[in-house]
């Protein structure tokens, strides 16, 4: 800008880039005046709280709260119509149908053996996935907590897969795990082993579903654990070093106990998420081979949307909700205990 009045034009140039968005914002927001100013005159400013909460509450009530309540109604009725008026009340029939087995040691004798298979698979998945993931996340967080070069870079690398959508994650791995042309089988071939149909053999499929979900979620838990580690005051370690404590005992007696509250949060969040495993597996194996990777949520999805047995699906999701509730309450309990300790 080479205008003679350099001073004033400089300030104008400076503010100009922000001008349009600001004017746009103000213009849009003054639309709110049209609705809110008369309302305020009508209700008085003290009652405006209700008005502000209302839109969110409405959406929340209709699409979250109402379905939650309706879920119970579905759970206690049967019929293949989703319309409430066409459903017949059957009481606890759905629940008992799901829970009924002639021999509880053998799930093939259950009336809904698929549900039980889903439960079993979910239990195995949860133990394996949470165990492996929390261990690796802890090791990674400890590594990232060291004063090393390139920390920010490594932190981002480990976090990146968290942002990928479940479909993308599943497709990336499906491509790598291909039985004929896959990268992994090429590596196996390179060291003289026979190719394995990773996603078509039950135990391999279970294994890879766990590893893939660890891969895609680990970074999130690493970040939380890292934040926990960084909140431990370094003076504690210095004091311990002055007292002649070994490095290992610093970890054992300072890091671990002080990390416990974060650990509890991580464990429970991971558990809650693992119990709901669905989307990655839905794309990667679709529950297969057979029912080897059929998990609880996919059972609900299949029963409800593919077989149109809405009552059974709702009853199963009530059971899922109970499981999640128990886990959440467990978290609060554990959290309180570790706070007290």
């Amino acid at each position, binding site marked *: 800008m080479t205008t003679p009045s350099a001073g004033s034009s400089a300030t104008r140039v400076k503010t100009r880039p922000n001008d349009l968005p600001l004017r746009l914002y103000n213009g849009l927001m003054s639309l*709110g*005046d049209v*609705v809110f*100013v008369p309302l*305020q005159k009508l209700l008085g*400013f003290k*009652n405006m*709280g*209700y*008005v*502000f*909460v209302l*839109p*969110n*509450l409405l*959406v929340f009530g*209709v*699409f*979250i*709260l109402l*379905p*939650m309540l*309706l*879920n119970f109604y579905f759970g206690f009725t049967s019929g293949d119509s*989703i319309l409430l008026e066409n459903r017949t009340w059957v009481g606890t029939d759905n629940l008992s149908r799901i829970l009924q087995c002639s021999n509880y040691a053998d799930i093939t004798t259950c009336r809904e053996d698929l549900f039980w298979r889903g439960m079993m698979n979910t239990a195995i998945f949860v133990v394996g996935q949470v165990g492996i993931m929390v261990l690796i996340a802890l090791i*990674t967080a400890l590594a990232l907590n*060291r*004063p*090393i*070069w*390139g920390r920010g870079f*490594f932190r981002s*690398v*480990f*976090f*990146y897969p968290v*942002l990928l*959508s479940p*479909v*993308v994650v599943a497709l*990336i791995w*499906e*491509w790598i795990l291909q039985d004929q*042309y896959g*990268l992994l089988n090429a590596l196996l071939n390179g060291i003289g082993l026979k190719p394995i149909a990773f996603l078509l053999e039950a135990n391999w499929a279970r294994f890879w579903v766990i590893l893939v979900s660890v*891969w895609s979620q680990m970074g*999130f838990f690493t*970040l*939380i654990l890292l*934040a926990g580690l960084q909140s431990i005051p370094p003076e504690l370690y210095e004091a311990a070093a002055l007292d002649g404590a070994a490095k290992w005992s610093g970890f054992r007696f300072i890091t671990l106990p002080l990390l416990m509250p974060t650990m509890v*949060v991580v464990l429970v969040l991971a558990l809650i998420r693992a119990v709901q495993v669905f*989307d990655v597996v839905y*794309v990667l194996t679709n529950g297969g081979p057979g029912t080897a990777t059929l998990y609880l949520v996919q059972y*609900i999805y299949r029963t*409800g*949307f593919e077989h149109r047995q809405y009552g059974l*699906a*709702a009853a199963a999701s009530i059971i899922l909700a109970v499981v*999640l509730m128990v886990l*959440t309450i467990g978290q609060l309990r554990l959290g309180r205990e570790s706070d007290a300790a």
Partner: protein
Amino acid sequence: MSSRTSSQPRQGIAGFLLRRQGRKRATTADLITYLYLVLGTVIMFGPVVWLVMSSFKPIEGLYDFPPTFLPLRRETAVVPGYDKPLELYDVTVEDGSVRRLAQVNRIGLEARMVDPANPDAAPIKVNINTREPVKSVHFSLTNYTDAVERYPFWVYLRNTVVVTLAATLVTLLINSMAAFGLSKYRYAGRDAIFLVMIATLMVPVTVIMVPAFLVIAKVGWVNNLWGLIIPSAATPTGVFLLRQYMLTIPDELLESARIDGASEWRIFSQIVLPLAAPALAVLTIFSVMWRWNDFLWPLIVVSKSELFTLQVGLNAFQGELNVQWNYILAMTVLTLIPISIIFAVLQKYITTGIATTGMK
């Protein structure tokens, strides 16, 4: 002190890489840490890099075994006297030397080859086991162009962008209004409303799939993009995050604005929202991520292919009987590019945002 003076600073690249804060020498623990982190980088990044590399391979290169890291293309040459470009091969001839020849045709185990430099000579007969195809690195875009042509990629992209932007705008507006109403006013039932919202944080979509679908059907939003935009906008997480932030804005500020005659909406839009900008930024990033990656909800609500989002569309391709990986790879890369760019630019905010709020 003695240990510090005795340790000589290392020279060269190794010295640079092993240098630590505080100028102490790298320990074994540091080396193990680096080894672990580098291995981790390969495992975390490798699959994505492999996907991107594969997406540039022409279809015949895709099914090469063993696969190559870089996308390769068969080299061809135009030889005078032949209509089509001929494939080039390195042929080991009888005297042991290697000659680069073009293949005219192949019959059984024998191939007839011609020297591109001397096309008039009679073709030489060569055993096919003595020749290797000539390949060169070439990033082919045909997978991308074909995929975009064959599948309604732009439609899916448009749907995804519309849903992501609209849902994020609605989320920001109604969540911030609710947070304002829950943090800056006192009225009967306020705490109850907040508690019920927070309690449902624990209830995922997976639990209420069936009745939620009924509600959507009753409202008339099955196979309608509004069904993807509105229901997910009332996120309890967003309300919680913004409310906690707005609690830190002093009430005196609002009081003095009221004395100056500002309406409640003015106070909200001109004072509270600008002050809550950092929290709004975090919520914006999260909301974009959530909506872009959403899979289960669109899968339930939308069944017409012209309303598919990218995620549902991608899933539909891979569910086809004859999986066409060349297209899927290209589409997958296109789907992950926007999120990757957002991450590259805003990674600092995203990682600190998650570390402080503990949400995803």
